[in-house]
């Protein structure tokens, strides 16, 4: 069954159409990579799914529930969705541990001890156990992004949205974050990730969607979309990526 189903999504900002009758279906335990040029609507799509933006038309269903219905409690929906941002967005005034336990404690009402034990367990698993009491500014970009992923995971989400999570990282720090996403896939996490890392999309994604001007122009298995694209615009985009040396 589809965990996430977007139908005919439309979003415009001040007359500029960012999402244009966009359809996307994500089955449970599947990883979908969104590729496309900057401004093609990847981030907006993720923000709409997380109800951070209101769609101007179309429906979004999560677990069969229409979450684009204004009567839906957005806070309850977001508890089931984890989101990781390009710029990490950790809370600078809170330690790593407090960043991770904030939502479990305040949103899910867990006891501090229980939430911290879970957070430490997650941190140990990604090799950041020693950083529990550090503040975000004292960490490298890669470490911050891994903490941000752990923070989203602490909510035990049904779906993870990853918005260009490696774009702000130095090349040598990208690997540690990608390893973590690979492990998430192995655990069966359903993910939608916007990315510029074509090699990674090919490796980790079950399906690649090429977005252009707010629409899914082409989608399918990574070998097909990245290897033998049928659409002219996909070929053009991939050619530019190859020229930039990122494939």
């Amino acid at each position, binding site marked *: 069954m589809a965990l996430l189903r977007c139908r005919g999504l439309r979003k415009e900002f001040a007359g500029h159409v960012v999402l244009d009758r966009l359809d996307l279906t994500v089955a449970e335990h599947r990883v979908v990579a969104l590729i496309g040029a900057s401004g093609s609507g990847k981030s907006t799509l993720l923000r709409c799914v997380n109800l*951070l933006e209101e769609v101007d038309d179309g429906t979004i269903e999560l677990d069969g529930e229409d979450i684009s219905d204004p009567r839906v409690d957005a806070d*309850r929906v*977001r*508890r089931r969705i*984890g989101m990781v941002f390009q710029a990490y*967005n950790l*809370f600078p*005034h809170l330690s790593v541990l407090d960043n991770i336990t904030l939502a479990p404690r305040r949103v899910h009402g867990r006891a501090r001890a229980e939430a911290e034990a879970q957070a430490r367990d997650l941190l140990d698993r990604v090799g950041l156990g020693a950083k529990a009491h550090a*503040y975000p500014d004292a960490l490298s970009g890669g470490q911050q992004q891994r903490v941000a992923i752990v923070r989203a995971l602490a909510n035990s989400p049904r779906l993870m949205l990853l918005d260009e999570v490696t774009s702000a990282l130095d090349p040598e720090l990208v690997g540690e974050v990608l390893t973590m996403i690979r492990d998430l896939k192995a655990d069966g996490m359903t993910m939608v990730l916007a990315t510029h890392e074509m090699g990674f999309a090919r490796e980790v994604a079950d399906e690649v969607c090429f977005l252009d001007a707010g629409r899914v122009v082409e989608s399918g298995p990574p070998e097909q979309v990245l290897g033998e694209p049928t659409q002219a615009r996909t070929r053009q985009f991939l050619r530019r990526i190859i020229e930039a040396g990122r494939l």
Partner: protein
Amino acid sequence: MTPREHTPSAAQLRRSAYRRRQSLRSVLIAAFSTAALGTLLVVAVTGAPGWDRVRQSFLDPEIGADALPAVLDGLWLNVRLLVCCAAGALLLGLVIAVLRTLRGPVFFPVRALAAGYTYTFRGLPLIIVLYLLTLGVPGLRLRGMPSVLVLGGLALVLTYGGYLAEVFRAGIESVHPSQLAAARSLGLTYRQTMRHVVLPQAVRRVAPPLLNDVVALQKDVGLVSLAGPIDAVRAAQIATAQSFNYTPYVVAGVLFVLLAIPLIAVTDWVTLRSARRQSGG
């Protein structure tokens, strides 16, 4: 692994020696110019033709000692008023600032009221607010009317609440929208986001200007004496009228400065601590 012993190169030694010479020179120049200016000032003031008269009427130790108990009594009123009014104004300012950030048409009346409040009380001179509350309100002869002191304190809270609300609002707006997005994406409600993510960052950022306003408030609490209660400055004024000597004013002034020092020191400490905690880890 131990770091290898490092022997500075000849070029580095020359650079270090040059920097040492330069800083020594700067220190000497600064010390000399400060001493010269200080001497000049002392000579100019004490050598002035009217110096003896001024010293008698502003710096008479005997009159100062006589006035001290009354001025201290008045200062105690200042301190009590300051603590209550600062707490009240900070709370009011915070509430108003948060109300002004609420979005959506439902909150329009609340936003409009909050904005109207800050416009009115930042524009209205404190003395007029004081007169209106301490002279006008008791004129209504309502039952259970609080004392003039409480009404005066209320005038201070209303006026300073307006200033502090704008400082808080600046702090709230300085928190990047991505922080809100991150908090909401975790399922936190708007209230929880404000309480746990936005306000802690906002308040830390604006702590210095907030405490700056509290220092200003410390001097303005004395204005309640316009309505009767005797504060330090009023006590000094009474003592001056009795002795025809201005020394009590100087005594009050020195006491005010002494009172401000701990507050200013706290401001610096708070700023330093939060900066260190966030970057140090």
